[in-house]
């Protein structure tokens, strides 16, 4: 009764539960603030009015890992920072994803030395690498949309919580 009288006959939409859940996840993904270097400036630019990441369902950067499901590692990770990064990743609730933003986070970049982790995938599993030094906001947004494509194809049985 009720809603049809107000909105008219909408018919019935059917979908898979998996697709519905994945769709809702992609449209309300909360990234965690993890600005470590100059990439963070581009990440801020991607959030600000010119590029406006909230078009893709990212209104808020969370400062707490417990409230976020996407970690954007923006910048070079020093060997001393690495345990802290892993700790924050472990504190994020499932399901969670990681974007390695920029060359330094992806592979060490120009910092091939004793102080910098040679690619953040040594510490946390990475879903999307974004190349660039630093990547422009468009590149970051492209990385996020690429991640969405991945999330949309995810199956419940593959999630770490189920395993």
């Amino acid at each position, binding site marked *: 009764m009720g809603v049809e009288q107000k909105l008219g006959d909408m018919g019935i939409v059917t979908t898979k539960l998996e697709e519905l859940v994945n769709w809702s996840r992609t449209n309300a993904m909360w990234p965690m603030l993890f600005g470590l270097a100059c990439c963070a400036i581009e990440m801020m630019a991607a959030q600000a009015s010119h590029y406006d990441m909230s078009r893709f369902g990212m209104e808020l950067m969370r400062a707490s890992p417990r409230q976020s499901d996407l970690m954007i590692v923006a910048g070079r990770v020093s060997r001393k920072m690495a345990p802290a990064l892993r700790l924050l990743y472990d504190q994020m609730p499932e399901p969670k994803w990681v974007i390695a933003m920029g060359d330094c986070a992806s592979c060490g970049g120009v910092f091939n*030395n*004793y102080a910098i982790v040679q690619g953040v995938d040594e510490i946390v*599993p990475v879903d999307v690498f974004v190349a660039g030094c630093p990547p422009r906001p468009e590149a970051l947004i492209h990385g996020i949309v690429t991640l969405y494509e991945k999330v949309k194809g995810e199956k419940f049985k593959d999630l770490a919580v189920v395993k």
Partner: protein
Amino acid sequence: MDKKLENIVQALQEKFSVSVEEFRGEAHVFVKAEQIIEALTLLRDKYDFELLSALTASDYFPQETPRFHVIYQLSSLARNVTVQLRVPVNGDQPKVPTATRVYEVANWRERELLDMFGIQFEGHPDPRRILMPEGTEGHPLRKDFPLGYEEPQFTFNLDEIDLRKPYAKE
């Protein structure tokens, strides 16, 4: 050399029989490790060098022996002069007495030198690494420390290096 500096350097020479080098008007005074605390105390108390503006080291391996120079850059704001004290230190057991009792600011500087060059400071209140994480092997700013951390990946050795990389599991 600065006129104001001349009598200070002369006093050091008489007291500790140090050798002096001059570079672009700046005096480099070479002091023995066992005399450095006395020299620092003298400069601080008698010649108003109230500021230890830098405490660093240089590694001259393999050209020179002893390979390290521990460098104390002192400034006097009252007299507007600076002077540099250098302590040559041997490579295999580098040891210098700590300057923390003369200049408290030396605390973290000496920890940095311990971390980066492996120079021990005898009597230091807190001899731990300061920049690198605990458990790091070697001292990165020594000249014989390897430059690159990891071999760059090209098409010909990509797979080989990929196998060695410690990727994270979930």
